[in-house]
């Protein structure tokens, strides 16, 4: 018998624990010729804001050892175009569609959530709190426990869907933010978003990226992400989704063993559009080899108090 990969992430029911990370899978359709998105546990789409955003000046991408920096600048089509142009196709999928949202003010977060209310095929919202807060001189919402909690509350008030809060690793102690967001009522957490970094061109003596800094992703950040997941799982009761440098089934297994109930694959989609499907196949294979009837038996087994 095939091992059972079904998993419950708070109120969210997934057919398997493998999701695509926001910003790396477009609006889903871009990959549909190359792999069947319906095999995924879920699709998390590019971060949506109230108004369309053109994004940062190029160059926006630079490769780094075992990773990449991106400074896309949260470019997206905006709420209205998302609903009219992107959502209809997503609604035909037979998997969980999760919409990642962000804003530059508390009100913007709330308005995007309100605009997606009632759409039955949206399984959950994921809040990106790593966005610069206009009211606080551009400091990220996600670096302040109080602000993170207020964003969470603002969104919860405007939505009928489970809310996942996606945490930034660019903080002193991620557990403090995690607890604040849990107390505010979040249904789940996902972590980590990208780590801020930089590359300088020694010929021009200027940062390579048009935005000067960018977010580091890919296998280079995996040990950091895994450690943070391991820490956060110990400090909150709500479920945690692991993100960061996951490319192989073995990578995903480490996060599940650390206590993540699901994983998101980001940069891995660029390396191979079928990375997520290879991971799903690998999870099945692992369970079968070890005689494990359900993937749920693996979760958290690397925690000391297990």
């Amino acid at each position, binding site marked *: 018998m095939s091992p059972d990969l079904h998993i419950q992430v708070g109120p969210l029911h997934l057919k398997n624990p493998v999701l695509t990370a926001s*910003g*790396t*899978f*477009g609006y889903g359709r*871009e*990959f549909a*010729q*190359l792999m069947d998105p319906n095999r995924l546990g879920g699709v998390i789409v*590019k971060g949506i804001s109230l108004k369309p955003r*053109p*994004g*940062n*000046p*190029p*160059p*926006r*991408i*630079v*490769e780094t*050892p*075992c*990773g*990449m920096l*991106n400074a*896309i600048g949260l*470019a997206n089509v905006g709420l209205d175009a998302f609903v009219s142009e992107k959502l209809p196709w997503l609604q035909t999928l037979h998997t969980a569609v999760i919409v990642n949202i962000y804003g530059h003010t508390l009100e913007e977060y709330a308005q995007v959530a309100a605009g997606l209310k009632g759409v039955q095929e949206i399984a959950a919202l994921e809040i990106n709190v790593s966005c610069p807060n206009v009211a606080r001189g551009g400091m990220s919402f996600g670096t302040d426990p109080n602000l993170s909690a207020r964003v969470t509350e603002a969104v919860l008030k405007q939505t009928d869907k489970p809310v996942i809060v996606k945490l930034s690793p660019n903080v002193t102690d991620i557990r403090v933010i995690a607890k604040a967001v849990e107390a505010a009522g979040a249904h789940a957490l996902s972590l980590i978003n990208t780590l801020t970094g930089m*590359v300088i*061109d020694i010929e*021009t003596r200027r940062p*390579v990226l*048009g935005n000067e800094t960018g977010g580091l992703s*890919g*296998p280079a950040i995996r040990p950091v992400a895994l450690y943070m997941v391991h820490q956060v799982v110990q400090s909150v009761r709500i479920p945690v989704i692991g993100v960061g440098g996951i*490319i192989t089934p073995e990578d995903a297994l480490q996060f599940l063993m650390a206590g993540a109930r699901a994983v998101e694959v980001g*940069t891995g*989609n*660029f*390396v*191979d*559009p*079928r990375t997520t499907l290879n991971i799903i196949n690998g999870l099945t294979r692992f369970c079968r080899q070890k005689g494990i009837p359900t993937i749920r038996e693996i979760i958290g087994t690397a925690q000391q108090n297990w």
Partner: protein
Amino acid sequence: MIEQHAEVTFNDRVAADTYLMGLKSPDIAARAHPGQFVMIRVGAQADPLLRRPFSICGVRKDGGLLILYRVVGRGTRIMAGAGPGTGFDVLGPLGNGFDFPAQPGESLLVAGGMGIAPLSFLAQRTGQEVQILTGYACADQQIPFECLGLSHCAVLVATEDGTIGHHGRVTDLLQESGNHIPHGYAQVYACGPIPMLMAVADLTLRQGIACQVSLESTMACGLGACQGCAVPAAPGSDRRYYHVCQDGPVFEVGTLDWEQLQPHVP
């Protein structure tokens, strides 16, 4: 669009640091249109991580896909070391190609360095005896026309150090006609470094001659998903940026903001 493992059938050095690689990829070859590109995964390891974009330089009847590349860094160095029988994961064909010329004999192709790759595929496909201007830094970078299947074309060469052909830039070849595109050409196709493309854009825009350019940009996905390959759209467009992988890599000159275009790809 297809992703498949393609066997290297040959990988020949054709000029200094320059190789022509044949990949057995009948499905991609069958769908390829000049100007389109592929993303090649150079290794199975996590480093170097991202796929590398390359123009399709031609296809062979046996399903071979031709890639002409210059060794500039880690990825292309790995490619240069691949012998027949080894292989790479290839994703393509990607992006939008060139529109074919309406009238034979009316098109002028301008190639700087590796810019000859997509343009030679275009020249082969049109089957027309097109005029090609090529520019290289020096003679030993010049790619023999025979190996690109361009024997039916009229080719002029310029080298920056004057070691072969005209001493100067490829765009200087236009200066013989008084620094404008000579009469009789209704369509220009160009691919090469940004400064060269800027010069060509300037001429064609001023003279009102249709011109399509193929651009480069760093890329992560090649699929229009990551928004990493942005180039500035002309002022007055309905968008601020186009994405090279999806809206290009071939653009009409008038659609781009040449003032903002970055001359330097890291």
